């Protein structure tokens, strides 16, 4: 458990651990009171850690939990009601860990770092949460408020999400898969992964085209692009869940907001930088600063946990041997239509052609009477809309939830897609994103799901080795 990407010195860490324990205690007090009589030790220990491990509403039996430190090293298994308790003789800081391999198939910790935490036993009963459900992938640093549900007074219960178990198809423990195989043979699984990969790839493509258009017209690699995606997700979350608007109105509002957000990027930051003739490397670092600022601002707004969207994911439809939710089917259809639209825009309209002209050679385009500034503004707005849409689809894809750093976790996949396709080529970004989407999902068939992003990035590096210009790039473009 840590406060930032860097753990504090022990004193501060302790202070936070204490604060957390107090928080957890307040939340878990009721449970603890109920749990205490269950302890079968002869002498009741003066202190304890306890909790209930549940997947949704189902208590899980036989999950192993270890408490170690201060001379204690005790492993207990949860009972039939999901309860566990480890008695302690003294106050102090202990490592409390859960053994994920004892969790039932398909159930994972929502936040992998919760597998092991340092907690302080400061009062007699200390409730410990192990939120289960959809992990949000290889996210970066979890935060002190990481355990959602910690403030909801549900005590030692599992996470509130747990959509994994509510999906009839089952998510096979791969976390982000939105489709499941109806039967268990390899062929069905493969098909499920392929559909899932295409779905993921299409939504990546929406965001990646934004990156590639911005790179093409301005030369800037936008490291804050992931935050644009998160923006779409958060706006959608706010509209549907906080305000309670219908989905279609929420989508429209989100896209309008995303367009404004894209425009704001250009008007408030990047146009002034162009005016100042700030160098490309500097602008690159500005986007990194922007990414940090926005990301933590989102966390400031919605907290560090995973927030569930109150949206209907639609009925589950069975396509051949594959189960999909209606929302995913619609999402894929929308992606395809929008991508086709973007293709037509770039090849058929005046502005689209002007965009490609600016990508090709900005000064030449300017010399021939194209308003480069206007084109760039349009590109930012377009990128905002596309990426906002990707944000909406992504929240659906990962199981209708949103976290402050979802965009950042897939930013590298977006870059991988763009680079793979050939920097600056919109069509290349589409192909690259599809490849990345498929690779991440297919990889889960062969290796641990938590390595699937690593495989995608490895593919990127290997392709660069053989074909530095990307799949569709022109060789001469490389220095």
């Amino acid at each position, binding site marked *: 458990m840590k406060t930032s990407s860097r753990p504090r010195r022990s004193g501060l860490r302790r202070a936070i651990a204490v604060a957390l324990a107090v928080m957890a205690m307040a939340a878990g007090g009721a449970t603890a009171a109920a749990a205490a009589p269950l302890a079968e030790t002869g002498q009741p220990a003066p202190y304890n850690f306890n909790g209930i491990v549940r997947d949704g509403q189902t208590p899980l039996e036989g999950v192993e939990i270890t408490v170690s430190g201060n001379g204690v090293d005790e492993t207990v298994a949860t009972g039939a009601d999901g309860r566990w308790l480890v008695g302690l003789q003294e106050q102090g800081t202990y490592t409390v860990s859960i053994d994920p391999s004892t969790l039932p198939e398909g159930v994972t910790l929502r936040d992998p770092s919760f597998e092991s935490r340092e907690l302080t036993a400061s009062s007699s009963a200390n409730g410990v949460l192990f939120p289960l459900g959809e992990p949000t992938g290889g996210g970066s640093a979890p935060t002190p408020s990481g355990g959602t549900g910690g403030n909801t007074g549900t005590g030692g219960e599992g996470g509130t999400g747990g959509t994994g178990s509510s999906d009839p198809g089952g998510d096979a423990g791969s976390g982000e898969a939105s489709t499941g195989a109806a039967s268990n043979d390899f062929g069905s699984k493969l098909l499920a992964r392929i559909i899932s990969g295409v779905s993921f790839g299409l939504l990546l493509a929406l965001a990646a085209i934004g990156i590639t258009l911005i790179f093409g017209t301005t030369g800037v690699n936008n490291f804050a692009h992931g935050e644009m995606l998160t923006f779409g997700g958060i706006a959608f979350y706010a509209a549907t869940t906080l305000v309670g608007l219908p989905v279609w109105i929420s989508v429209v509002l989100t896209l309008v907001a995303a367009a404004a957000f894209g425009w704001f990027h250009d008007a408030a930051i990047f146009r002034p930088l162009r005016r100042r003739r700030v160098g490309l490397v500097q602008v690159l670092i500005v986007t990194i600063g922007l990414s940090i600022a926005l990301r933590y601002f989102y966390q400031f707004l919605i907290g560090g946990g995973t927030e569930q969207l109150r949206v209907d994911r639609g009925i589950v439809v069975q396509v051949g041997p594959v189960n999909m939710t209606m929302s995913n089917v619609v999402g894929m259809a929308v992606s395809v239509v929008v991508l086709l639209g973007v293709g037509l825009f770039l090849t058929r309209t005046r502005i689209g052609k002007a965009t*490609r*002209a600016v990508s*090709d050679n900005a000064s*030449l*385009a300017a010399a021939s009477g194209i308003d480069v500034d206007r084109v760039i503004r349009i590109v930012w707005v377009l990128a905002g809309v596309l990426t906002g849409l990707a944000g909406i689809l992504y929240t659906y894809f990962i199981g209708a939830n949103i976290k402050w750093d979802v965009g950042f976790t897939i930013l590298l996949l977006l870059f991988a897609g763009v680079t793979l396709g050939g920097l600056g080529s919109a069509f290349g970004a589409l192909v690259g994103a599809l490849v990345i989407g498929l690779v991440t999902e297919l990889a889960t068939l062969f290796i641990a799901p938590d390595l699937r992003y690593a495989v995608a990035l490895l593919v990127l590096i290997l392709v660069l080795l053989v074909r530095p210009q990307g799949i569709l790039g*022109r060789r*001469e473009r*490389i220095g």
Partner: protein
Amino acid sequence: MSDTTTTPRTHPLVDGEVGPGCKKVDPIVVADGVVRQFGGLTAVDVAHVEIPRGHITALIGPNGAGKTTFFNLLTGFDRPNQGQWSFEGSSLARVPSHKVARKGMVRTFQLTKSLGRLTVLQNMLLGARDQRGEGLFAALLKPLWKAQEAANVERADQLLARFKLDAKREDYAASLSGGQRKLLEMARALMSEPTLVMLDEPMAGVNPALTQSLLDHVKGLKDDGMTVLFVEHDMHMVRHISDWVIVMAEGKVVAEGPPETIMQDQAVVDAYLGAHHDTDLGTLTNQQVAQIHEEADAERDAELEADGIEAGDEPAATPEPEAPAAEAAPEQRPEEEQR
């Protein structure tokens, strides 16, 4: 088409008859069948060319003739699709650029590459060869390279004085004027004691006031026993200082000869005046700029077929849009990409 040439049949530098690709009495560079294609476009296709030792040779030709690309190929900054060339008898094909430089064949660039955030003196010292202190571990022990460094500083100061840059010794190179940067680049190249100096458009962007001293410096190189090969558009410079002129057009060597007579060569007239003869440039203004590259390519294709064009087209008839089209010519692309 060479019937009407006025170029003399023989010349003291030439072994045999004067003409494109003729043999030299004492060549320092010999190139054979060098071809470089960009996509479907052939930028350079030099069948045979020799550079005479100890003289100043100019490489001229219209925009997009492949001069700079040929330069890049000879110095290892670009790889040819095929071809062989040698420098002082040893083959240089596929030798990396830094090794080419170490053999004594040093170049400058069309767009000056002075190292802006190094001082003028540091720029100069970078040119010196075989520095012991340039090894990672030796660098840590100053006694190992102190003496050599002092000698290099002394030589750099002499060169700076000769190029009238001594007052700027401690200034950042970024603060120099365009002409001074050209001078610095030339002086820096001399620090490596080259046998062949290759100058890519030494006059481009130079203040006219500096022109004469630059010309004198180039001539001075020959007096010091070096061979000079330069690319230039400025015919004034070509006529004044070169001993030999090689003309390229559409990637090929189309003519060679002494500067006094070369401009009367029919092939040269064709190359310069016929280059934009049959392209309908009037329509180009209305083209989408995205297609300008393709336009340029198409134009080139048209040129390739345009053998035996009548001389006498008015150059002034060439409309304005020709300039950006020529800018986008493939010859300059590698430069752009190296940004």
